[in-house]
């Protein structure tokens, strides 16, 4: 440890030992702690607009492609997700099982948002979705195994080349499943323009088109 601008230095171990064993010889107002502060700035953040007015407020953008295969029961509106494949890129994968869990969890959340999750309110504004029997989350038996493919393109802007892994599941899954439902009911002349593609909403679209 050296003092800036002076020709004096003490080994770090001696400093640590002094703090540990002699810290209380200091005056009361001086905290006998060793402390270091560093801040890291991703090099690609831009909070002021460039000549085209563009901002760059986030360090990395993971991306994913979702392909969903669904079967729609045209008599009941029930949607069965038969296959769901996700290819995603979160840069360097540090812990593969964590990444698998993040992407799978996000994907299931997206499937649930596409097909079932809905806050329902009565005419008086009182919420009617008050538990998991009325606010329907997907359960394991509602889903196929989520098939994952990893593409690794390390980010040049982070220390380890990592990118986010939690984001790429949700939005893509929601869109892919919802589009698959619309694709399935298109031959019937039906189309949904709002989530969720719940059985009552799907059947209403089918019967409305007939």
């Amino acid at each position, binding site marked *: 440890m050296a003092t800036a601008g002076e020709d004096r230095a003490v080994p770090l171990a001696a400093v640590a030992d002094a703090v540990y064993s002699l810290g209380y010889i200091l005056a009361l107002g001086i905290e006998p702690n060793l402390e270091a502060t560093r801040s890291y700035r991703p090099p690609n953040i831009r909070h002021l607009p460039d000549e085209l007015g563009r901002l760059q407020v986030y360090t990395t953008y993971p991306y994913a492609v979702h392909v969903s295969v669904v079967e729609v029961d045209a008599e009941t509106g*029930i949607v069965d997700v038969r296959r769901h494949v996700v290819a995603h890129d979160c840069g360097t994968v540090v812990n593969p099982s964590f990444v698998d869990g993040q992407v799978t969890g996000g994907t299931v959340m997206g499937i649930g948002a596409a097909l*079932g999750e809905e806050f329902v309110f009565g005419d008086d504004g009182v919420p009617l979705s008050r538990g998991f029997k009325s606010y329907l989350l*997907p359960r394991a038996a509602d889903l196929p195994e989520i098939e994952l493919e990893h593409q690794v393109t390390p980010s040049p802007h982070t220390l380890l080349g990592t990118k986010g892994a939690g984001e790429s599941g949700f939005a893509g899954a929601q869109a892919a499943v919802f589009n698959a439902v619309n694709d399935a009911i298109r031959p019937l002349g039906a189309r949904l323009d709002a989530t969720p593609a719940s059985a009552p909403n799907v059947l*209403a679209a089918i019967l409305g088109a007939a």
Partner: protein
Amino acid sequence: VIPAAFDYEAPGSVAEVVSLLGDGVHVLGGGTWLVPEMHAGEVRPRRVVDLGRAGIDAITVADRLLRIGAMATYADLLASADVRDRAPLLARMAAGITGGAAIRAQGTVGGSLVAARPQSDAPAVLVALGGRAVVAGPAGERRIPVSELIAGPMRTTLAADEVLVAVELAAHGAGCGYVKLKRGESSWPIATAAALIEAGPDGRCRTARLALGGVAGTPVEVELSALLGGAARSPGVLADAAAMAAAAIEDPWEDVLAPAAYRAAVAGPVARRAIDMAWEDATTWS
């Protein structure tokens, strides 16, 4: 935490149960409805009478009648060879009870019947089976058709000092079909159809019974024997039966999971699938 104090009784006989009943008294069966309702403060009984020690959980056969004790659980139904042989429709229903093994081991057939929730499986199945409710009261036992036990959504015709002790069923040799439509694993049933078909060696229908659940405030019995009697199984006949089933629903049930229009629309298809399944079962069974 249950927010209100109450007396708890667990008598050892039906006679003692009856003597403890009255206004403000709730009967505890498997507890899958009552206990959560008490925790939520939705019901505040002054006394809870637990049927667990009243000796009414047995499944027995006597005089060609299958007797299901009111405290028999869905797991008990599944474990019973008598149920499998004499009322396979009931076994088929029990296997698909929402909630998995924990609920199947806890919930009771009698409790489901007395709760009379439009969305529950058991009431419509027991109506399809022509079940008779055995009711105990101060004057002794009386028997009424299950369809007369259910007065309306969440209401029965039981007096305040009466308790359901069993359901009796005549054994059926008919083919059976059960279809349950729900929005996902965590969903209550939206529409159920329980069908019983007896067919001759030529595959033609002899007798038909159908009851729908979930689609109205109480189970809907559909009289199909005149339509299907003597008929051969065909898409046209099944479509006619589905139309008759749909037409039998006068006032569709509605809840947070599905509006009335949806239930009215799916009743026909669900009925048709159950009838087709029962007819298939009837012609491959013998």
